């Protein structure tokens, strides 16, 4: 909280504080929220790299080799590490929030939160397992 007061029309003596630009440092959950929002930048980065990979793959083995070499540079290793951590944080925090948005009723009773969160994690595990099987076989 900072800056001067704002005044309300017809009530010039009412006191109104402006919100500081540092509001998100005021408490831990605000900071967590802003971090969760920021992770989307790295989610986008990850998506771009994946598209770039597809393009390189389509252009033949030579281009793909150069793409892989570039991924091995320290800059990309660092960026990928940050992106990986961000995507993890993004996925976990959003998964944990799903019961707020999804309310399922079975036989008139609300499905408990842990079932909704759990099914997200289960789907994540199954899909990751499927991807791992495809990759390791090939």
């Amino acid at each position, binding site marked *: *909280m900072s800056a001067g*007061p704002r005044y*309300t029309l017809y*009530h010039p*003596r*009412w*006191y*109104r*504080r402006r*919100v500081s630009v540092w*509001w*998100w440092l*005021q*408490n831990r*959950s*605000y900071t967590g*929220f802003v971090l969760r*929002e920021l992770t989307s930048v790295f989610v986008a980065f990850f998506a771009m790299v994946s598209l770039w990979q597809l393009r390189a793959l389509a252009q033949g083995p030579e281009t793909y080799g150069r793409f892989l070499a570039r991924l091995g540079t320290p800059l990309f290793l660092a960026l990928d590490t940050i992106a990986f951590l961000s995507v993890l944080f993004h996925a976990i925090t959003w998964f944990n*929030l799903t*019961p*707020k*948005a*999804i*309310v399922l*009723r079975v036989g*008139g*009773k*609300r499905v408990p939160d842990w079932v909704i969160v759990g099914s997200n994690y289960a789907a994540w595990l199954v899909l990751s397992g499927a991807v791992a099987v495809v990759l390791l076989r090939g």
Partner: protein
Amino acid sequence: MPSTVALTVARYRPEQESEPTFQTYEIPFRKDWVVLDALNHVKDQLDGSLSYRWSCRMGVCGSCGMKVNGTPKLTCATFLSEYLPGPIRVEPLDYFPVVRDLVVDLTEFVRKLKQVKPWIIRQEEKPLGEGEYLQTPDQLDTYKQFSLCINCMLCYSACPIYGLEPSFIGPAAIALAQRYNMDSRDQGAAERLKILSERDGIWQCTFVGECTKVCPKHVDPAGAIQQYKFTGATQWVRSLLLPWRTR
């Protein structure tokens, strides 16, 4: 256990000062006292000029919401013993204009609440002779949680989006709109959607989630808003695919 505790209270006397200041009172500590008891002690024994709102002192009326050590709280349900050894800082709720000391103005909220039509809307009333509108316990259960809101404004004070965008309809008003949308007797969902899917409605919310954390009645306004976003989005897709079927 201490015999006294320091209570630091925000004062704003518009005829004397241009911005709020703090004043500290040394009050007796009693383990059965809540912050509101301490304020009443100040008002009765130490300084009669202190202004604040309260009424029921049992978490029903929703008038004694203030910030205690930075967190929005109902002061009638916040024990002094949680904040030992003190000092305990009491401030008016954030983001509302301060009228005096701990009293804030809520006109803006009342205007928004009225906008979302928090009452049962019927397209057609059934004749009195047919009796009352019946509801099963399961149907009641779908909205009961949202109906427990006491308009204490803690959720607005916890919402940084409301602070940054004062035109945002806000958590409590949207939860109360959802209370009527989910009611099996209500037929006004389409009317409310028009208001709530506009710029100042549900899409302003970025799901910080603090409104739900501070709610003393476990209304879960953040949940109400996210569920409403789902409804809003499906209605939008439907209107895109079936433009002739406007609901």
